[in-house]
């Protein structure tokens, strides 16, 4: 009898352990619905941060989700996840199998996440449920997964890179039209770089920005970082030349301030907005600039320069196909409800509302004609997407590539802050990045 308290402790402990593990298993799951309409179900949606802040995203999305619930009877549990956490959250959900039903992803991750097998493949049957693949703009569908496989996600918002320039500073320097080639950009940049102002603002410490620009510069030199079979070719002559040209905007041409080398919190956008820099290469910066107090009349917008000639295909591309895709987790218990939700989010009416709020281009053809997307900024972006944007490599090693090469370029910017960067240094960094790619 004297052992009783101890035994009770053990039992209590066991019970607690059992209870916590049961709780852990059941958390995150949504109520499933047997009905074919999905009505009455609750789905979880992880949205990416598209507004000027996460609070802003809730403000934009909540009324739309309420509308969806009213239409279909399906409740949506929304969580807006910041970019710093999104990929890790998606990976954790993939590994544990305890995730949301629907999630936003950066469209460049599509092929990598497709390889994990976490997402519902968009077969023609699944596409039919949301209105068919043909409702999307084809360039946007080009960034949804590896070629020859059903897409892992569908396009939600599209954006492209463009060159933003400060009209007043251009006028002061006597420059009448925005630069169209890199030589012109460097010449203009030197004219604009005076005491307190630099010609161009660069987000040199940011891995995503670095990788996007490097990809475009390299593409303009005919290098795509991956062979057609998907093997990394980071040290190809064109890739080295492209990356070198990019970092030497700071190192050799000195049109960007050395301090930009450690920027990774969008300081380059605030530098541009406050007139500390005359030019900025950014994707759909309008909303961002507005939140920094710069009105659309103060800046002009032009396509990113090319080596020579005018933007187009091949080595004259001037942007990546940037944007957000929306995906359904394969193990969702509410497939019907999730598909209904994706259909809702990609419907022309919602696309118009959402892209108007976020300053993006709708990847849904029927929504693009809206007059809301005829502003000077969005007209340029729309044209870039239609004619001269290239999708990032759609290979399973893409996210590794972004991380490793983005880091290499960050290191190169640290060198560029001190002076010109040699081709050999660039090649060493890229070779070291390539060696760390999983075989």
């Amino acid at each position: 009898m004297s052992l009783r308290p101890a035994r009770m402790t053990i039992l209590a402990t066991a019970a607690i352990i059992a209870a916590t593990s049961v709780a852990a298993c059941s958390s995150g799951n949504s109520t499933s619905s047997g009905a074919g309409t999905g009505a009455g179900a609750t789905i979880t949606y992880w949205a990416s941060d598209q507004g000027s802040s996460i609070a802003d995203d809730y403000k934009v999305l909540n009324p739309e989700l309420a509308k969806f619930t009213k239409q279909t009877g399906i409740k949506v549990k929304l969580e807006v996840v910041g970019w710093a956490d999104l990929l890790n959250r998606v990976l954790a959900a993939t590994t544990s199998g305890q995730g949301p039903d629907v999630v936003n992803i950066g469209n460049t991750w599509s092929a990598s996440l497709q390889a994990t097998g976490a997402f519902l493949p968009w077969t023609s049957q699944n596409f039919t449920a949301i209105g068919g693949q043909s409702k999307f703009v084809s360039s946007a569908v080009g960034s949804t997964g590896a070629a020859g496989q059903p897409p892992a996600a569908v396009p939600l918002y599209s954006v492209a890179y463009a060159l933003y320039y400060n009209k007043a500073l251009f006028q002061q320097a006597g420059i009448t039209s925005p630069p169209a080639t890199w030589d012109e950009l460097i010449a203009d940049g030197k004219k604009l770089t005076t005491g307190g102002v630099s010609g161009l603002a660069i987000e040199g410490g940011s891995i995503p920005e670095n990788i996007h620009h490097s990809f475009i510069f390299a593409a303009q030199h005919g290098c795509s970082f991956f062979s057609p079979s998907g093997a990394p070719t980071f040290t190809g002559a064109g890739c080295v030349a492209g990356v070198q040209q990019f970092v030497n905007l700071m190192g050799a041409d000195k049109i960007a301030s050395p301090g930009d080398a450690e920027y990774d919190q969008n300081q380059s956008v605030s530098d541009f907005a406050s007139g500390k820099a005359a030019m900025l290469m950014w994707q759909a910066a309008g909303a961002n600039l507005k939140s920094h107090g710069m009105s659309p009349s103060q800046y002009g917008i032009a396509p990113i320069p090319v080596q020579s000639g005018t933007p187009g295909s091949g080595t004259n591309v001037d942007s990546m196909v940037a944007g957000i895709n929306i995906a359904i987790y394969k193990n969702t218990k509410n497939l019907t409800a999730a598909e209904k939700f994706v259909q809702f989010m990609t419907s022309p009416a919602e696309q118009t509302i959402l892209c108007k709020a976020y300053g993006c281009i709708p990847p849904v053809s029927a929504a693009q004609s809206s007059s809301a997307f005829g502003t000077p900024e969005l007209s340029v972006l729309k044209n870039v997407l239609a004619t001269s944007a290239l999708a990032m490599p759609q290979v399973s090693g893409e996210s590794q590539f972004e991380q490793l090469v983005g880091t290499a370029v960050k290191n190169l910017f640290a060198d560029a802050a001190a002076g010109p960067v040699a081709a050999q240094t660039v090649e060493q960094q890229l070779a070291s990045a390539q060696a760390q790619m999983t075989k």
Partner: protein
Amino acid sequence: MPVQDRAGETASAHQPTAPRRRPGRPRRPGRLRRIGLPYLLLLPALLFELLVHLIPMVVGALISFKSLTQLYLAQWQHAPWAGLGNYRIVANFNGSIGQALLHSFVVTCSFTAIAVGLSWLFGCAAAILAQDPFRGRGVLRAIFLTPYALPVYASVITWAFMFQYNNGLVNHVLHDELGITSRPTFWLLGDNSFIALVTVSVWRNWPFAFLVIMAGLQSIPRELYEAAAIDGAGIWQLIRYVTMPSLRSVNQVLVLVLFLWTFNDFTTPYVLFGNAAPQPADVISVHIYQASFLTWNFGEGSAMSVLLLLFLLVVSGGYLLITSPRRDG
């Protein structure tokens, strides 16, 4: 219900043994009670320890023998076994991955040695200086302890702001105000990032050394100092022959704890440098994080972690063996 059943069982079990008990020998149940109770009381803690520490560690070690890449994330249990493949890659110091790991290891060791040394030195000096009562001692002690009491993230992000190239306080003072440097310095990029990391780490950890040594000093009897002073010992001799030997056991634990904390510190470098630490400050915790989470190669990352664990075990064990007083009679 089971409680009663089992209790009844023990009751009936010792009934027949009772008559055969020899005098002088303790009753079995009583002995069991005495020996067993502490273990039973420890059991819940052990179970949680198993759940929270050991099982994840064992799973981590198992993963290091698997080739767990993004292709198997959704069904990570089915990732193919890689044997010693991951270890061969991460410990091949001629290869790029092994070389980077070795570099990171060397950086971490020097970082740890310098940061622990300085933290201990500052903590020790401050504790000895604040030993004798003076006006404002309490306030001073409280101020000294502030860095340790602040949340890590908040304080390190403040340091990151202070170290900024363009608008940072450090450059403003050194360059703009005092004119010590001819041009602003990069503290978060390139070679100086190591100095920045050591600075923040020491700033964060020395108050702990101060706290522990201060507590240790309280237990040294005043008579020892008085006796030594009568024998003509100066302040340095007092510290060397009275204070230090008396603090031996405190220092032993303190240095070990500081070593483990600093070596494994992830938050400080991560908040200071973000996802990708500059090479001169590429400490091993961030390096492994990048190797596993950012490139999605959890097999290799786990292999690195296991090697690190073995290293820390060897160092900690060796340290305790060398510094512990001999147990001879």
